[in-house]
């Protein structure tokens, strides 16, 4: 059997699995995927890999006793065996008071995240794309280290109440660091797409090369509070720490930034500048995502923060039932609206500030305020009177993205960006922020 099944093949397989079930409820999740990668450093290929994976997970429930079993062989005997195994484990399990049963049939939005171009990438095509990048860095006598990874596959699920879901997807990520031979300059670029035909490794390489050359001979300036312009690659690694905290249960329990005294949450509160609007939408053409969550809940277009106000927190089905709320699942993508300013416009309107192109090693220092620490990396520049004057040495910062979004000056045009911390893609604008807190200097290049 093929690794990547069509919708009708997946449906037929899942129906067969459910036909073996004797439990009160049964739910089956199925996936198949192929991945390939090519890694290079010091202008040479270093490692490469190719992986094939398929998996079927059966969850059986008797009342509130739940068992899960998994298998990667799909012949009839194996399928029946995995169903029996999950039933045996369920009979042995203690009751799970938080089990709320499986969902009935659902309606899902349409979302196209599968591109043949990406699904047909071969080792030769990968080598060709990397070759385009290497030729440029070698010719310029700069040193490149990069990583190209592509993936295609599908997820499907079906349960004994008649729910069926199927979603095929493709993805390609390309990241590159270019350094000057004396290690005094370093530049970075990251690109992530569903459709590999949008990936231009040569154009991306030019950007990293330009930043490497431009960041050499950086000068030290005093740490302190500065107006900063964050390119989307820098902004996203701060913002995603807000998203990670938007869980209703932690907020209701009093142990998150989204908690308030007296057992309340910040749902409905204005927490950031009114120009901040953040939502999820699986059908977004620039950032397609699965229209269903892993437990079969539909992913709808959902406002998380609208005009600075918290509109939704995510709920497990159990917690939503307990609190009498709508069970809004964790989103599968995140989009932040922006303004019309270009990065150049933002630089031009800055009297004194710092252009930050990338941030690194982000860690939460205080969950109460989402205070984060980390450092600038791979190209940080001083701006004066509307112009980039010179590269500056890297800074460590201690700042909360919530405080940062209250100190908002300008939002630029959103673009698709790959988080260097989580490897997830987002649509995020560049942003100008006042009084961003840098606490010390680093000699790192």
């Amino acid at each position, binding site marked *: 059997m093929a690794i990547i099944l069509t919708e009708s093949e997946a449906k037929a397989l899942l129906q067969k699995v459910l036909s073996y079930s004797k439990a009160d409820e049964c739910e089956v999740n199925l996936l198949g995927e192929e991945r390939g990668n090519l890694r290079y450093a010091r202008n040479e*290929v270093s490692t490469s890999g190719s992986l094939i994976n398929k998996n079927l997970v059966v969850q059986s429930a008797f009342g509130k006793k739940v068992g899960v079993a998994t298998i990667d062989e799909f012949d009839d005997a194996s399928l029946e065996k995995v169903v029996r195994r999950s039933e045996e484990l369920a009979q042995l399990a203690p009751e799970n008071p938080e089990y709320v049963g499986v969902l009935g049939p659902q309606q899902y939005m349409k979302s196209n995240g599968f591109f043949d171009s990406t699904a047909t990438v071969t080792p030769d095509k990968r080598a060709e794309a990397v070759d385009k990048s290497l030729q440029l860095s070698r010719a310029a006598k700069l040193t490149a280290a990069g990583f190209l990874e592509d993936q295609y596959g599908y997820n499907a699920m079906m349960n004994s109440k008649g729910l069926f879901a199927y979603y095929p997807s493709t993805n390609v990520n390309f990241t590159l660091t270019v350094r000057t031979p004396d290690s005094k300059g370093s530049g970075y670029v990251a690109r992530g797409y569903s459709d590999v035909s949008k990936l231009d490794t040569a154009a991306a390489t030019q950007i990293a090369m330009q930043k490497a050359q431009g960041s050499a001979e950086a000068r030290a300036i005093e740490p302190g509070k500065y107006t900063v312009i964050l390119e989307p690659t820098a902004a996203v690694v701060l913002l995603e720490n807000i*998203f990670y905290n938007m869980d209703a249960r932690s907020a209701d329990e009093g142990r998150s930034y989204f908690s308030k005294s*007296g057992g309340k949450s910040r749902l409905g509160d204005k927490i950031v500048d009114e120009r901040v609007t953040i939502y999820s939408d699986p059908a977004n053409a620039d950032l397609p995502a699965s229209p269903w969550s892993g437990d079969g809940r539909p992913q709808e277009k959902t406002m998380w923060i609208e005009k600075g106000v918290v509109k939704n927190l995510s709920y497990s089905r159990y917690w939503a039932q307990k609190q009498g709320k709508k069970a809004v699942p964790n989103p599968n993508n995140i989009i932040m609206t922006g303004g019309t300013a270009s990065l150049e416009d933002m630089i031009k309107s800055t009297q004194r500030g710092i252009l930050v192109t990338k941030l690194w090693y982000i860690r939460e220092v205080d969950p109460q305020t989402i205070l984060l620490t980390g450092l600038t990396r791979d190209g940080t520049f001083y701006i004066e009177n509307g112009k980039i004057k010179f590269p500056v040495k890297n800074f460590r910062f201690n700042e909360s993205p919530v405080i940062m979004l209250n100190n908002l000056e300008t939002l630029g045009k959103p673009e698709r960006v790959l988080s260097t911390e989580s490897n997830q893609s987002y649509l995020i604008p560049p942003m100008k922020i006042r009084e961003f807190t840098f606490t010390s200097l680093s000699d790192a290049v």
Partner: protein
Amino acid sequence: MNRRDFNQLIGMGAAGILLPSLPAFSRNVSPESFLESGVDVATKKRLADAALNAAKSKGATYTDVRIGRYLNQFVVTREDKVQNIVNTESYGVGVRVIADGCWGFAAVVDAKSEADTAKAAEKAVAIAKANARLMKEPVQLAPQKGYGEVSWKAPIKKNAFEVPIKEKVDLLMEVNASALKNGANYVNSVLFMVNEQKYFASTDGTYADQDIHRIWPTFTVTAIDPKTGKFETRNTLSSPMGMGYEYLQVNPSDKVTGITTRYNMGYDMLEDVTAAAKQARAKHSAKSVEAGKYDLVLDPSHLWLTIHESVGHPLELDRVLGYEANFAGTSFATLDKWQSKNFNYGSKQVNLIADKTQVGSLGAVGWDDEGVKTKQWDLVKDGTLVNYQAIRDQVHIIGEKESQGCCYADNWGSVQFQRMANVSLAAGKTPLSVQEMIKDVKKGIYIIGDGSFSIDQQRYNFQFGGQLFYEIKNGEIVGMLKDVAYQSNTQEFWNSCAQVCDEKDYRLGGSFFDGKGQPSQSSAVSHGSSTTRFNGVNVINTARKI
């Protein structure tokens, strides 16, 4: 699996938008199946030989084969509930070759036949040849003698997979109940157990069969102040260990008493959580630190992470050379500093040792993942940088004739590369207790347990938090502090090292999830030290008002 995936899987992290993912290619199994023996050694040799021969016939000049069975069990609870019991098993084969001077790698799940492993070998050769056209310099592999058919087993006393799930659940329920009784509003607790059964074969003539065990009991307690709406947490003071279930069967000699009890080769989870609940509550009324310079007294439960980030990582030769430039970064400890033979990494008190053999450590094995017998070696001697951590295709660069044996892959499906050995600070040679050390400190902070951590990509500038902070004034501990983090620079910090307690205080800390590489791989590594004093370190206050 990285730290964030793990946190989400066990429900201890903040809610994320990523769905939790299990280790690559693993499948859920019953706990009883952990006790079934995997593929027998004779079969593994046959499967490996098929791959070695197939690669050779396609033109490979070197081949190694790793046949791995990876068992994981996590028991995840909160308050009075078992949230999850996860049992996973992953079995497969990874084949790495050099052909036309270039590396190639291919892996296959559930390989049971010689045809399966031969096919993976052929694919690895094809990939090597496709990529060879991008190579300017062929791979130089240090020669390695073959050891024939050998084996190594971690010296555990009680296999954690033989302990019934019920016993583990009962322990965690007792732990949680004690936390709630002693002032915690919430408690999350987890037992995490790993068994790696790995078989390595190479064209050098080594066939090594190894059995590795790891365990990590861990928890977080949360105490909320309803008046202010603030919350405080305290995490476990346990360490992940290369041990069996005996780590949880504690002897009095495993305990280090003092301002709070800390643990050595045995861990009393019930005692620790009881203290943790009270301490999380006490943090609400602790004094917020005044920013400034302090002498720091760092407990081994804290210092391991500073050693890991500021010594272990910068002395990885692949980083120094630029192989990790695109992700984890490079290193300030460049070759010229090592060649000078007088680079002061730290003060004279600082002796840092790499070791792949230390009993009970997470990094201990008999042979590494490219067939090199493991050993111990100096990295920093009397404060001077003397060596790095390297593998077979790099050692020629530092003039060594053989690899130091720190090659590792986190799964059969991942390609092996240079990973950190256990890197530890040697105990002080002069007798010195923690009490004696504190007695001499005028203005200081005593830090226990690891907290928030961040360091730049060349490992100069870092910032660390902790779990417990105690103010020292004129040789006495005067009370608890909060909102503490220290910032320093690696060379400056290690040169401010004034005193190291003696070997009686030596303990291991460590990480289950050290991430590196693209695609990212996890490795487990230990770091030992005794309590150590660093003078005049910059401390910041991390409290903010929103």
